[in-house]
Structure formats: structure tokens, C-alpha cells
């Protein structure tokens, strides 16, 4: 490798020089030059492999995520590559065009990286801390719930429902996220609650 590298270096360094240098360097059909190039180095050497499931459709293809660093050892870990898991019974290592591009989802320039608030009438989002954002959401929820919660209907039946704030759950979050979401939303007596099952 090093030798090959230095050969490349040398070629690259040969600018417009004297005929003597260039000719002497290259020679005719130098057999050595034939050995100058190897197959490109393999990209995944010394990476951490993590098993995961494709986030798109419900074929739920097994995927392998290759990262520099291991998040389970406390690294931030930088994901380099994602491809299909050949051991997975359904996809056998294959991935569709969406799955094959998963790295671009993780690294999308449109990933959200900070909480933000858009004030009424404003034309922009402004970054805020998590504390501010979460306190604000909790306050908005509580105020609306306290104001509009219906304990009994007109017939006096206990209905304990809240329908003036709506909730939508995701379609790609885990069951565990869904469970916690259900608990939090339902505990408030919220009825306007739906997911993405139909679209």
C-alpha cells in the first residue's frame, strides 16, 4: 500500500519539468508501473455493525448500520453506510431504492436538531431550549384541557372526554414509543387521537 501510495505521490508531483526528469521517471512500459495500482481499499474495515430495521414500509427489511465508533460504548458514532442484512429471512440482504438510500435520511440536511417556536404571526422559527419548549407545551395542553374537558354529557353520564386538542401518532415509531404515547395521551382523556394507518 505505502509503496503504491508513494508511487502515486511521485507521479502527482512531476509537474512540467525537464525532459530528462520526466523521461527518466517514466521510462518505456516500465514493468513496475503495472503494479502501481490496486483495487480501492475496502470502506467498512474497522467499523461497528448495528442491526436495525428499515424505517419505511412494513416489509421491515433487516438492515446493517456501519458506523465509526460504537454508541453503546458511549461514542457519538458516525454512520458511514447502511445496507441490507443478508441473514434476515424476508429481505435476504436486499433493499429497495428507499432502503438503499437510508443513509441519506440519517444525514439529511432537513433533520431537525433543536426545539423551535414560531410565534403567532411570525415568519420564522426561533430556537428555544427543551425546557422552554416542553414547559410551553405542557402549559398549553393543561390550559386547554382544564377549559374544555367534559366530565359529564347533557344526560349526566360521566364521559370524561377532551376533544378540543387533537393528537396524531406516528407510523414509524417503535411499539415502545407508541405505548408511552398511548398512556400519556389517553390518561388526559383525549379522544381526538389517530395514527397514520390510512394514508
Amino acid at each position: 500500500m505505502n509503496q503504491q501510495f508513494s508511487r502515486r505521490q511521485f507521479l502527482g508531483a512531476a509537474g512540467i519539468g525537464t525532459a530528462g526528469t520526466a523521461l527518466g521517471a517514466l521510462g518505456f512500459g516500465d514493468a513496475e508501473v503495472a503494479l502501481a495500482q490496486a483495487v480501492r481499499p475496502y470502506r467498512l474495515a474497522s467499523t461497528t455493525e448495528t442491526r436495525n430495521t428499515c424505517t419505511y414500509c412494513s416489509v421491515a427489511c433487516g438492515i446493517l448500520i456501519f458506523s465509526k465508533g460504537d454508541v453503546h460504548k458511549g461514542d457519538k458514532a458516525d454512520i458511514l453506510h447502511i445496507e441490507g442484512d443478508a441473514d434476515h429471512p424476508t429481505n435476504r440482504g436486499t433493499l429497495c431504492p428507499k432502503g438503499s438510500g437510508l443513509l441519506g435520511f440519517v444525514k439529511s440536511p432537513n433533520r431537525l436538531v433543536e426545539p423551535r417556536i414560531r410565534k403567532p404571526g411570525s415568519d420564522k422559527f426561533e430556537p428555544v431550549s427543551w425546557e422552554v419548549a416542553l414547559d410551553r407545551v405542557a402549559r398549553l395542553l393543561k390550559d386547554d384541557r382544564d377549559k374544555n374537558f367534559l366530565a359529564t354529557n347533557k344526560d349526566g353520564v360521566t364521559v370524561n372526554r377532551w376533544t378540543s386538542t387533537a393528537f396524531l401518532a406516528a407510523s414509524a415509531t417503535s411499539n415502545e414509543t407508541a405505548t408511552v404515547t398511548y398512556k400519556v395521551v389517553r390518561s388526559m382523556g383525549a379522544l381526538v387521537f389517530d395514527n397514520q394507518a390510512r394514508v
Partner: protein
Amino acid sequence: MLSPQIHDSYPVAVDRYSGLTRLNHWINAFFFVALVLSGLAFYSPYTYFLSGLFGGGANARMLHPWFGVIVTISFLFLFFRFVGGNGWKPRDTAWMKNPGAVLSGDEEALPEAGKYNAGQKIVFWSMTMLIIIMIATGLVIWDQYFAAYTSIEVKRAAVLIHSVAATAAIIVLIIHIYAAIWVWGSIGAMTSGRVTGGWAWRHHRKWLRDLVAGRVDGDMPKA
């Protein structure tokens, strides 16, 4: 009346090429050689080493077409400078009919030559034609800028024509250079701009006679 080009000393000195003409020629010569050397780099694996002169193949590839453009433009000026003297005359045909005398330098056996003899005219016209061919086909295969304009089939033919023309042009160039070396005093004509009267008498007697007679050789503009 004696042409001001003739300086009556001994030996007689004759102005053959003006400074501008010489400059033009040497620019052309320099870039033509660069063009040849860079072009030869992709001509054959045996000559690829020449790319080293230009800092490697990629530079040679990048520079070669620009050399071609420079040569074409420079040759265009040269062409207009020289075209007047290169009209084909009956004496040129006669000159051509005696190659033995040409090769042995027996110019007494040949018709008197004007500013250019038939061999030079052939060099001139063949170079003109080859440069036209090469710039035309060269543009077709100058992928960096013109890849989109022609089909691959056309490009393939263009590469072939370009390389055949280049072969011919290089051979013409070799003849040209050799002739200059062989005929002593020719190089001086293009360096100092002057030749001796004897040189002119020996190789371009009609030209000399015309200058002496104050005639402008029909195929010769004011130098």
C-alpha cells in the same frame, strides 16, 4: 530598381523574412512542436512518456487542444503572410518532375525557384490542409467542451482522421525541418531574417532576379 531588401555588400545580404514573420513562425514552431509532443503522448503507448514533458497525461490532454488552437490561429496569420508566394506555377510542376536533382541538390538542373520552391509549396499547402483537418476533427474530440455535439460514431471517425492527419503532419514537419537543416542558411533566414545573395542565387534564383529587377515576384508580397 533594386529592392530595398537587397543590401549591396559582399556577400550580398538579402532580407528574406521580416521580424513579425519570424516571430509568427517561431511561435507557430514552438507550439507545433508542443502540439506534436503532447499529441504523441496519446498516440501510442511507446510515446506516452512524452506526457511527462507537460506534467503528466492529464495536463498533456488538457494542453494539447489549446496548443492546437494556438497553432491554428498562429498558422492562420502565417498562411496569409505566405499564401501569396505559394501559388503553384508551371515551373513548380517541372521542378517536381526531377526528384533526382532535387534530392541531390543539383539545382542547376531544375527550373529557377521563386521565393519558394515547389517542395516548400507542398509543405505549405499540405500543412494548411492538415491543420484544417486536425482542428476540425480535434474540436469534435475535444470532449471537455464539445462532447455533447457529435455522436460517438462521428467521434470515432474523427479520432482516426485526426491521427492519420497528425501522422502526415509530423512527416511533413520532419521534411520541413530536415530541409532547413540540409540547406545551410535556411535556419538563418528564419532567425536573422537574412540570407546571403549566394544562398538566394543557389536556391531561389528567380526570387533574387526579381528583387534585383525591382519586380515584385508575382507570388511574393512585400516582406
